[in-house]
């Protein structure tokens, strides 16, 4: 892990140079083959995590610490390209336009085109030749999006406020059926309930982002950075609310000091992010 403290910023606040450095680092990892290992790693978890069974990255109390570790690992790889790069976040409670950042040609590019829904603008457009999609559930070799289809809206600041007001981290049975009126984790993850800060943003972006190959769309990182930021705010607000269940569920989900596959990292080790980054 890089020792220099990072500052994760709102993507709308990045300078032109910071935007260019972030995009270049992502494209470099793609060219190295590193990027697709993250798509595989994430898909291996999401295709395995299941209610009532092994669940580590999703539908589990370890949703937040697992993704914190996932982002830390990716960010560390970005820093091997350019140590000045930090993951930015997409605050979808304020950046709600389909044409402003992060959907601009210097960042994520825009919506998919009519018909095949291919993303044709920005650094991840298929025509650049730099963003072939190969680790995906379907045969399309390109990034595709279908933004803001009817029925889907982005979470609001009111939704975020209601989640942040919940003082209990998680509740039995600690999966996708945990009561979203009592489990902050499931209210935020969005397996049930209408607050749903996480799940619904995937189909709101649509296309690659809605599939089990979601990290093929680099906006994945911006969305999860926002969730990590909101989780960080929740931790500050509820300093005495522990990870639950502390003992985990044997053979199914990790406890406080048990490893989160595929890493040896435990929830305890990433519960605080203060040694790596702050949010601005």
């Amino acid at each position, binding site marked *: 892990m890089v020792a220099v403290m990072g500052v994760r910023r709102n993507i709308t606040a990045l300078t032109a140079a910071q935007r260019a450095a972030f995009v270049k680092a992502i494209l470099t990892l793609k060219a190295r083959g590193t990027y697709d290992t993250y*798509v*595989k790693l994430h*898909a*291996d978890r*999401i*295709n395995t995590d*299941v*209610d*009532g069974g092994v669940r580590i990255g999703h*539908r589990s109390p370890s949703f937040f610490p697992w993704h914190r570790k996932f982002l830390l690992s990716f960010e560390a790889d970005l820093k091997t390209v350019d140590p000045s790069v930090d993951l930015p976040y997409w605050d979808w409670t304020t950046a709600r336009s389909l044409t402003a950042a992060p959907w601009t040609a210097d960042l994520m590019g825009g919506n998919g085109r009519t018909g*095949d*829904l291919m993303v044709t603008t920005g650094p991840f457009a298929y025509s650049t030749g730099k963003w072939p999609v190969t*680790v*995906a*559930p*379907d*045969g*399309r070799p390109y990034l595709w999006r279908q933004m803001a*289809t*009817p*029925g*889907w809206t982005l979470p609001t600041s009111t939704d975020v406020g209601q989640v942040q007001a919940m003082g209990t981290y998680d509740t039995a*049975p600690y*999966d*996708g*059926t945990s009561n979203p009126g009592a489990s902050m984790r499931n209210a935020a993850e*969005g*397996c*049930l*309930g*209408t607050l*749903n800060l*996480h*799940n*619904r943003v*995937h*189909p709101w972006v649509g296309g690659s982002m*809605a*599939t*089990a*190959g*979601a990290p093929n769309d680099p906006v994945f990182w911006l969305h999860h950075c926002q969730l990590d930021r909101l989780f960080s705010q929740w931790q500050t607000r509820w300093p005495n609310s522990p990870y639950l269940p502390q003992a985990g569920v044997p053979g199914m989900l990790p406890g406080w000091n048990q490893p989160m596959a595929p890493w040896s990292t435990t929830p305890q080790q990433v519960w605080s992010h203060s040694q790596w980054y702050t949010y601005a």
Partner: protein
Amino acid sequence: MNPLTRRQLLAAGALAGAGVAVYGTRTEPATATEPATDQTVTYRGRQVTASARHATIDGVMLHMHRHGDGTWTSVMDHYRSFPTPFDAAKAAVVALNGAHLRAGEWWR
């Protein structure tokens, strides 16, 4: 195309409202439209075969999960859920938009 059974019509009706009905990922209990045995229909030009536990599109297995509330999620729509494998498969046909489904464990 085979004549639609009452069950299939019920399932199709469930899907028609899916864009709104499964919003927020809470859905109705699955039992009402869950077929007891394999059924095959042509949907938007694709051959969809579904049973109570799995589905294929043009003969390729559509990887999916059954959630604790009885709903289903496939690799093509991984962040929302559907009442039955048949519903998940038909939504996957829409998402595929003519593309083929990758066979096997494409993520390994």
